């Protein structure tokens, strides 16, 4: 593309559990400012890949660089501090905490004083349009609201790169559309986004570039349009009959 340095560079990433290769030889680059997609059927290794990138799992091989700095092998909280935040596919708020307190936990990373953290937690909630729910017990939220809370927590760490893990799965069409708008807005505010998604229409709507995983291997990478047109992708993921 350009001479610009990629924000995230993944080279030859592999992860095995015992003899089972969950992910092998995955390489891609995410440029600052883009929304990058990872597509793949269930069990393709998408979540494992995310766990490797965010430091929850050690890599078996390969390297991950964030803005030129090698981050694999670092602890998750250090990676978070360097500007990589993630959401979890299985959303679970911290129990016994209000929506605001949940986000405050994340905001404390950059704002050690309680009042500062609270202020920035409110800002994060406002960005995702749920500040009016701040004082609610987080466990009383609906599924769609919990997803947004998950994003609010992640952006409260003030990341440069945001990893979204299947944020739209199980939402109604309206909820999904609203969340897509919010993801776009966060991206427009300067946060680069790497998203795992099951649904092809959403990826093609949001992402300029994408890779496709199947059985832990990279089938294709490039612009989303080219990737989705790839014959192997059509066969493996969409089923061979899709035009």
């Amino acid at each position, binding site marked *: 593309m350009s001479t610009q340095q990629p924000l995230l560079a993944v080279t030859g990433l592999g992860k095995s559990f015992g003899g089972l290769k969950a992910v092998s030889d995955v390489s891609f680059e995410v440029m600052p400012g883009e929304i990058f997609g990872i597509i793949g059927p269930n069990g393709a290794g998408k979540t494992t890949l995310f766990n490797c990138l*965010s*430091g*929850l799992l050690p890599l078996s091989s390969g390297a991950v660089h964030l803005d030129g700095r090698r981050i694999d092998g670092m*602890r*998750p*909280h250090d990676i*978070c*501090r360097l500007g990589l*935040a*993630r959401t*979890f596919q299985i959303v*679970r708020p*911290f*129990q*016994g*905490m209000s929506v605001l*307190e949940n986000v*405050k*936990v*994340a905001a*404390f*990373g*950059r704002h*050690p004083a*309680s009042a500062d*953290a609270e202020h920035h937690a409110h800002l994060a909630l406002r960005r995702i349009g749920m500040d009016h729910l701040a004082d609610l017990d987080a466990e009383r939220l609906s599924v769609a609201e919990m997803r947004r809370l998950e994003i609010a*927590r*992640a952006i*409260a*760490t003030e990341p440069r790169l945001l990893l979204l893990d299947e944020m739209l799965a199980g939402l109604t069409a309206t909820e999904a559309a609203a969340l897509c708008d919010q993801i776009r807005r966060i991206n427009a505010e300067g946060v680069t986004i790497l998203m795992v998604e099951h649904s092809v229409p959403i990826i093609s709507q949001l992402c300029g570039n994408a890779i496709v995983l199947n059985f832990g291997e990279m089938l294709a990478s490039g612009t989303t349009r080219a990737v989705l047109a790839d014959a192997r992708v059509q066969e493996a993921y969409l089923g061979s009959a899709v035009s």
Partner: protein
Amino acid sequence: MLRRFLPALVPTLLAIAAFCASLSDPYFMEIFIMVGLIGTVAVAWNLMAGFTGLVSLGHSLFFGIGAYTVAYGQVGFGLGPLATWPIAALLALASALFIGLLCFRYGLRGYFFSIATLAFSEVAFLLVSATLWLGRSDGMMLPSSPDALRYLQFDHKWPYGLIIVGFLALTLFISQAVLTARPGYYWRALRDNEGAAEALGVPAMRYKLLVFALSAVVTAIGGAIFANTFAFVDPRSTLGVELSIQLLVFGIIGGLGLLWGPLLGAALLIPAGELLRNYLGSGFHGVNIVAYALLLIVLALLLPQGLGGVLAARLRRRAPEKPAADAKALAMEAAQ
């Protein structure tokens, strides 16, 4: 500001009132001393168990470190509390960091962490019980000294009660300050979901060590006060597993989710145990213990949230939103 420290202030005021009420009778003062001392240690224990999800079954180790540091410091070196209390705190800090590093480094969680802490305290119990210069299982007396004030030796029990009021107040206020600041949020996040917390920038290891260290130091100071108050330490009462279990029971009955829950548990169960001993203890041998156990079972069945949990829910009921939502859900169910 006042609102933030209310959970520390109210129990402190109640403790002062109880202290004043106990001044009339040395027997009451003795009960007040046990409630205040063990209750405060239980509060420190609960910072780990209730707020961070680290259930230690080996806190008697730190209590024993405090008690034996004071006893041996005086018997062996002629040191008074001014020297022995800080040494006790440092020794407890070092032990907590050592055990914590070992447990957390290898990812011990849940029951495994509890059993590991229990093992450490049992080893200490056996070692001390077999060590000649620590008095073996017979324990050690702290000899009375002509320089009474330097060794905190008083003719009456009430000055110890006063010290314990201070210990209780300090522990409650420090705990509440920490719980309402960053560490408290991080601890609760770690208790609930360590992976998610770490991904949100919570340094798990550092904050688990922090709560362990704080809890251990307070517990050791409690042990030190115990030694000075009773002028006697032995492995059974300061290092035994009974003490660790007591902390657990006070926490569960009082309410684990609350700063003052374990204190409430102690304030209820220690006098209850005394009452049962007085009224039933002279009869059939052991019947008071059976009654105490029954009391625990009934309380645990009736109040799964702990007594404090019920009280806190009562206080919160002023907010009308929750019952309204419940009523709505009921109405919808009825309509279907």
